């Protein structure tokens, strides 16, 4: 017979909980402050490097000048127009990529045969750099929007497709068999068994695709110079020698990227917490 001491409410647990709570409370403001400190330090360094002439201040305007220009931009309708074009291209590209990749991914993923048959093709097409298609886009399409969309959709599509394939591959075969034995139709099975498992992967795919899509949209604008988005504005301001504006626009593009990344992550967290609570037993 084995006698052991039984676990009661314990010191260890009390300490652990208290530490976790205090860590959360204590470090939040500290982390924020440190982070802000980092940003300020970076800007200060930039200002110094430019003003002391370490780098030619013509080619690297001081941070202060750039920030002022950035503020001015925010008041210009032209700026917001450009932002609108970039965001519009991004959104449309994401939509098309999603509408194509999700169903295709599900169909392929559910069929062992299709999965194996398409694997080599996918592995070959996926790493093709989307920007390599730029010359093709210019040749085939006349509309700048269509040109950009080809690039954006091609890049975003693969991100989503690959994640959906992972997600469908993760579906519990026992759950599927159970559903089938209960006479669930194909669509029902997809809705009740496949979809819940696949959702987190789909969201990951959308997150990755969102970042890629923005980069590709701006790049297409920059390189092709057709679509009047942020990318083109950057190229134009540089060619015109308006360097503070160039930097200010790069800043704006980065911030747009951050906003999109953060936004997607917030949506992801919301969606997945709902998903966790709803998922129950599949």
């Amino acid at each position, binding site marked *: *017979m*084995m006698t*052991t*001491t039984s676990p009661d409410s*314990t*010191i*260890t647990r009390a300490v652990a909980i208290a530490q976790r709570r*205090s860590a959360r409370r*204590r470090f939040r403001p500290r982390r924020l402050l440190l982070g802000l400190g980092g940003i300020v330090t970076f800007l200060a360094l930039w200002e110094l490097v430019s003003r002391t002439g370490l780098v030619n201040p013509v080619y690297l305007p001081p941070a202060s000048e750039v920030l002022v220009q950035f503020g001015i931009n925010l008041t210009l309708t032209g700026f917001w127009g450009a932002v609108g074009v970039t965001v519009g291209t991004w959104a449309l590209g994401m939509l098309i990529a999603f509408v194509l990749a999700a169903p295709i991914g599900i169909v392929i993923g559910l069929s062992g045969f299709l999965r194996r048959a398409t694997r080599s093709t996918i592995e070959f097409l996926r790493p093709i750099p989307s920007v390599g298609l730029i010359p093709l886009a210019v040749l085939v399409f006349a509309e700048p929007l269509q040109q950009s969309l080809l690039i954006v959709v091609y890049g975003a599509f693969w991100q989503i497709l690959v994640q959906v394939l992972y997600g469908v591959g993760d579906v519990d075969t026992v759950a599927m068999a159970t559903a089938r034995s209960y006479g669930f139709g194909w669509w029902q099975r997809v809705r009740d068994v496949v979809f819940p498992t696949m959702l987190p992967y789909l969201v990951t795919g959308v997150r990755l695709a969102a970042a890629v899509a923005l980069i590709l949209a701006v790049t297409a604008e920059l390189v092709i110079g057709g679509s009047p988005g942020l990318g083109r504005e950057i190229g134009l301001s540089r060619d015109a020698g308006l360097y503070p504006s160039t930097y200010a626009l790069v800043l704006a593009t980065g911030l747009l990227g951050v906003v999109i990344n953060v936004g997607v992550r917030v949506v992801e967290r919301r969606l997945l917490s709902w998903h966790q609570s709803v998922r129950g037993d599949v």
Partner: protein
Amino acid sequence: MPPETSTAGRGRTLPDDQALLQVRGLQKIYDTDGGGIEAVRDLTFDLGRNELVCLVGPSGSGKTTLLKCIAGLLEPTSGSVTLDGRQVTGPPKKMAVVFQEYGRSLFPWLRVDGNVELPLRNAGVPKGERRRLVGEALESVGLTHAARQYPWQLSGGMQQRVAIARAIAYQPEVLLMDEPFAAVDAQTRADLEDLVREVRERLGVTVLFVTHDIDESVYLGTRVVILSSSPTVIQEDIEIDLPEARDQLETRAMPRFTELRHHVYEQIQLAKQGFRPDETRVG
């Protein structure tokens, strides 16, 4: 013969030249927002050479805290730990620890022999010597055949043996074991208990063994130190006067074993009910 009583709340101490490990007035207060939590109030006891001391206590009585302070992994709020006359401020060279979570303590990217040899590699031991020590250690835990496997390919009991082999190869003076067999099945646990005894006999290490399991503590130990509830002091320090040679069946069937086990169980129940040795002396 009644167990040696010491001042309430303190364990047995030895004269300085006999004590290998000395714990004096160890206190640990964890800092939290709502004031500190005193996990360990005042622990005082000694370990003599080649003793096998088992630490038992109600859950949350600061066993792991104590072990980590002794191991130099945690800094005590006050009090001291001395090994061989030198104060412990960080993990001392002559000490090895076997953790409860063997799965996370063994490095999954190294094979069994790589894991066992790692502390030696780090210490700069030359290759030939290393290979010899590793071979001996694996042999003493019976895992020579598994040397080229990855830890995660082995069962829980075997993984814990690897951890023990790693500690042995390091040739420590003191072996600290933090509930090492809690996550292992009963049959394997019996084998591992005997392994610990055997290792101690053969290599002459001193072992401090933390456990939940009362039977295990009486079976294994030359001494059992019972901890009070938190804030922890020593409830009682009992000498286990069972014969040196122990056997899972025979020893556990002895009447003296049952007596001792009963006594320890009683003390722990008292501890859980809040009885505190340092307070009864008041008034």
